[in-house]
């Protein structure tokens, strides 16, 4: 068989190869727009903010940290969007999960590891609830999770006030002291590397001799690990193919035996879980939880995923794209800060970026699936 297929391929191989130039291949990738956007943003701030310390070690860690928190969300959201659904409740989920960690730890004195596990347990339940509602009712997930957005936010404020009389719970830092699970979410890694880097002069030193950058925050580690895992899952596992299939055409997927409902429910569990991950990282980092955390994060995460090439209709997109989308967000946010432009303009820029991304995605998809 190999012989017979090889023969005609070589006969007109050259002519065929010239028909799919690199540009067209690149156009078929969902990340293209985000790569172009990221390059543009870096070049722009490289010129405008080059001398401000934005691209010093400290500056890079800063914008990576901002990007990574959004990126963790965006990766989960991208998976769900590829699977053809939305989750608007993740912003509220961040606040809710933060309280689920903080209240038992501070008010009731539970060990931190138990609180963290409890938060992820709650996330799984919320995800299952969202997913179950969406697949059984057949209602648009946009509406179902919009309900979730209000319910979770309201319940978080309600319970927090009921149990503590306030809307903010602090003192988590002390509660996390010495816990075995907490360092996985809060804190930093590679401190030794930065001490060494500063000793050879690559990274600047403070007056007391410690490096300016003490280490890589865990959020950045999670960001890259999750991005790698999500990419691998999407491109190289059965489950990944099912996500694309469920989002691309759910009845077609069902007809060939893809468990569409299970896939979708599991994706809602993933989005609720990444929201909880962000919440745990933030709570451990700040040492406090606030009922206002995560406000509008759901829309930012969707924007990052869309800038990264996810289609609103599902079935198309990538985790790397979502990561780049989040990186663009973080870079612009910090870049505007460094250049000293009024930060009010940040949102204008992002809005314009989003619209441009959607337009270009639309065009790319048309090109990618154009009938010969």
């Amino acid at each position: 068989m190999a012989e017979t297929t090889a023969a005609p391929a070589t006969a007109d191989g050259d002519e065929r190869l010239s028909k799919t130039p690199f540009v067209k291949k690149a156009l078929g990738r969902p990340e293209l727009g985000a790569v172009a956007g990221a390059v543009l943003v870096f070049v722009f701030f490289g010129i405008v903010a080059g001398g401000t310390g934005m691209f010093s070690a400290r500056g890079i860690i800063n914008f990576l940290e901002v990007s990574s928190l959004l990126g963790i969300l965006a990766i989960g959201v991208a998976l769900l969007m590829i699977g053809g659904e939305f989750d608007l409740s993740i912003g509220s989920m961040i606040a809710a999960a933060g309280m689920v960690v903080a209240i038992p730890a501070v008010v009731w004195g539970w060990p931190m590891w138990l609180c963290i596990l409890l938060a992820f347990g709650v996330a799984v339940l919320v995800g299952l609830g969202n997913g179950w509602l969406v697949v059984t009712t057949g209602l648009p997930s946009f509406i179902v999770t919009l309900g979730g957005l209000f319910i979770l936010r309201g319940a978080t404020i309600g319970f927090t006030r009921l149990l503590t009389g306030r809307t903010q719970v602090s003192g988590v830092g002390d509660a996390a002291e010495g816990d075995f699970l907490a360092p996985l979410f809060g804190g930093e890694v590679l401190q030794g590397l930065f001490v060494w880097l500063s000793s050879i002069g690559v990274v600047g030193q403070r007056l007391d001799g410690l490096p300016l950058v003490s280490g890589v925050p865990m959020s950045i580690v999670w960001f890259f690990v999750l991005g790698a895992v999500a990419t691998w899952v999407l491109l190289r596992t059965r489950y990944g193919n099912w996500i694309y299939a469920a989002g691309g055409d759910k009845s077609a997927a069902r007809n060939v035996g893809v468990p569409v409902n299970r896939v979708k429910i599991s994706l809602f569990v993933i989005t609720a879980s990444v929201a909880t991950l962000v919440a745990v990282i933030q709570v451990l980092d700040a040492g406090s939880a606030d009922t206002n955390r995560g406000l509008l994060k759901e829309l930012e995460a969707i924007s990052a995923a869309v800038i990264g090439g996810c289609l609103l209709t599902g079935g198309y997109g990538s985790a790397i794209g979502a990561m780049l989308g989040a990186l663009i967000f973080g870079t612009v946010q910090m870049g505007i800060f460094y250049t000293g432009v009024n930060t009010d303009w940040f949102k204008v820029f992002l809005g314009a970026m989003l619209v441009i991304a959607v337009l270009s995605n639309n065009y790319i998809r048309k090109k990618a699936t154009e009938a010969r």
Partner: protein
Amino acid sequence: MAEAPLIEVDSISKMFGSVIALKDITMTVEAGEVLCLLGDNGAGKSTLIKTLSGVHRPSSGEIRVGGKPVAFDSPRDALDHGIATVFQDLALVPLLSVTRNFFMGREPTKGSGPLRRFDVTFADRVASEEMAKIGIDVRDPSQAVGTMSGGERQCLAIARAVYFGAKVLILDEPTSALGVKQASMVLRYIAQAKARGLGVIFITHNVHHAFPVGDKFTLLNRGRSLGNFAKTDVTREQILEMMAGGKELDDLEAELAEFARADSTADGGAAAAESAMAASFHDEVEQVHHPRQ
């Protein structure tokens, strides 16, 4: 052949409430045989294939696969018995690649535990090989199905069913939305599947597509069978007549001619146009009845 036929349909009926959708349909398909199921719209073709593919259950009668009576709970169940149906929507996702569509829901894996993964190299190779077997040279198995022509998509859906062990292929109007070239691509593939020993049930309302590849013809009209005919016993024209299409078209032709005559006495200009139209319609009907032999 001494073996039991691949699939036997024994006087099945299907009622939806008081509506008789199918009444006493009997037919058999042997290995290496193409059965064409012909009928106009509303004749019950869709109900019949849905019954065969496990979507509906027959109200009465029996389906036997390889001589054994079966009752399908779902299309998946029918598939496990080797009966694969390619519906008109093809169950393909346009945004996904050829490979990913080919193996959708049945992805080959390698490795084990958490490292169990989609074997992309194998999948790509098999997908291009299977497509090459039916004469479609897939330049790049990672190209989106949306970039393929209708005929190629139809062939992909059929190739997928064959690869995953179908013994009986049920094809629901595979040529209806296709141009002449595309349709002949699909017909050629049906002939190939037959040569490989598969049983094919080919649903169509186009006699000219059915006749070249069919061995047997079952005609449906208003939920009843007009009979089973072997190719040797019947001509294309007889089938057309039986489908009622032939008579209706003749009547329509006569009517149009009548209009043209009546109008020519009243208004010269319009009548000329009318008669020209009638003439061209006549040609068309001639084409349908007696295509270029």
